């Protein structure tokens, strides 16, 4: 007892200065702990990948360029990403911007078509029965198969590439939107009925808010596939873009550049996915 009593003021004195830091540091550390942990795992995984890569390149006597050679090339690429030496020789950032531009244009147009049709399919069983077979047949088709049709219609490889991204972006968004709209709980519909909501109020205050998380999931899946398809599309169409860059690097026999291209494509894909995951979180209304 005595001991505890006498020591109390000392503790108070000591803590009065460090109280603020003690209170804030611990929770922040605890918050950071999971992300530190996952960062450690990520680094560990990449360490193993780099080691394997290094060994393979050693074994194959540099037929596959090793990490260090590739890193040097990567540095060259990002040192001056915006250079422009004519139509067939542009910086990596310009290639990337070109690809992203095409993806966003095709994706936006596709979403503008897919969301309203998805709502229609979800809300109306007649439309669903009419449209669903079409979606089922066309969804499994590789979007690249549409490239010739795009060429025939638009007479331009660039527009044909945007066209296949447009097609790519339809299906997941369509299906997820339709699913979201068709699962609106009876409770919510009853509120609309009981209080005499107009169609417009029903759409803006119940249908859209309820379906939004599903729509965003659809958009996320769509843009992921669109990013996959743009690379292949640009290999077909040529001209400009990250896919063209990879193909052009292969023609120039620089596997280092090809690998750099792969890494950049992966990172951008991850970034796109993360952006839409954040949007999904932002617009989810459940706990």
């Amino acid at each position: 007892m005595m001991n505890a009593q006498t020591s109390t003021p000392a503790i108070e004195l000591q803590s009065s200065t460090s109280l603020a830091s003690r209170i804030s540091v611990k929770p922040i550390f605890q918050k950071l702990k999971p992300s530190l942990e996952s960062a450690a795992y990520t680094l560990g995984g990449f360490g193993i990948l780099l080691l394997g890569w290094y060994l393979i390149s050693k074994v194959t006597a540099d037929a596959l360029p090793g990490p260090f050679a590739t890193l040097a090339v990567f540095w060259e690429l990002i040192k001056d990403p915006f250079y422009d030496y004519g139509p067939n020789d542009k910086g990596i950032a310009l290639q990337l911007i070109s690809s992203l531009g095409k993806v966003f244009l095709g994706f936006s147009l596709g979403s503008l078509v897919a969301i309203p049709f998805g709502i229609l399919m979800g809300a109306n069983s007649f439309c669903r029965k009419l449209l669903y077979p079409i979606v089922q047949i066309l969804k499994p088709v590789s979007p690249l198969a549409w490239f010739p049709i795009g060429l025939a219609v638009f007479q331009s490889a660039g527009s044909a590439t945007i066209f296949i991204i447009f097609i790519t972006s339809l299906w997941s968004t369509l299906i997820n939107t339709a699913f979201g709209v068709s699962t609106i709980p009876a409770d919510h519909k009853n509120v609309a009925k009981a209080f005499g909501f107009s169609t417009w109020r029903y759409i803006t205050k119940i249908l859209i808010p309820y379906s939004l998380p599903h729509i965003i999931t659809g958009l996320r899946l769509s843009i992921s596939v669109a990013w996959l398809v743009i690379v292949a599309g640009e290999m077909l169409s040529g001209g400009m873009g990250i896919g063209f860059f990879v193909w052009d690097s292969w023609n120039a026999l620089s596997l280092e550049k090809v690998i750099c291209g792969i890494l950049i494509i992966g990172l951008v894909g991850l970034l796109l996915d993360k952006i839409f995951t954040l949007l999904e979180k932002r617009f989810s209304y459940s706990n």
Partner: protein
Amino acid sequence: MYLEIKNLEISFPTPKGKYTAVRNIDLEIKKGEIVSIIGHSGCGKSTIMNAVGGMLTPTKGTVTINGQPVKGPGPDRGIVFQNYSLLPWLTVYENIFQAVDAAVKNKTRDEKKEITEKYIKMVGLSSHREKLPKQMSGGMKQRVAIARAFAINPDMLLLDEPFGALDALTKGDMHIELLKLWNLENRSKTIIMVTHDIEEAIFLSDRIVVMTDGPAATIREIEELHLPRPRNKKEIVSMPEYKIIRERLLSLLMDKVEIDQADFYQAAEVEVG
């Protein structure tokens, strides 16, 4: 008669075949009456409310209001759903305002905003007006649902266990608010309420409808109350009629429990033996 329910039967299709929830329901309610429905859970109280509200179409029989068959829901009937049915992405204020904005005609936007504020205040949620349903307790959600139904100023209020999630004190306040509202409009609003609370039913009602148990539940008995209005909770409990009605309701609702207990003891004896 203002509301007429004639030979009402409601069945639901289930995987095991047709399930008849209620049948042979005959009930007439005058304009301005307050009627409670009590019965064991699952006997079809909500089903009857939904038929009056227009959420369900009768399998047999008719529901008419002012001689017109009920064809669907409408803002002439304000409903407090048993599960509150708030829109999860709207705040307290928006949940009420959207309903008012949709259901109330011939009022300006500012007037509708005023109405919304008034009813938020009535249910004591002014300091929570920007909260989402997931940030609130069951009782608070229930009060939002009550405010929403009251705010559209309907001719008929359909309240499905409206005060069930409230603590005794808040419940008492809500009873007063309900009766105030009813008095304010010269007792012209018709109120139908489902409840489990016998005291609540007696304090508020002109008549109490007691249901039999489901399936195929029907009306077992209708109790007429002649307690004078305005009623005072403290005063009525000492009135002889209050005690008689209370005993009657208790015995109607409890005899099943006693039979269940007898079954239980028999079963226990069999097991012991």
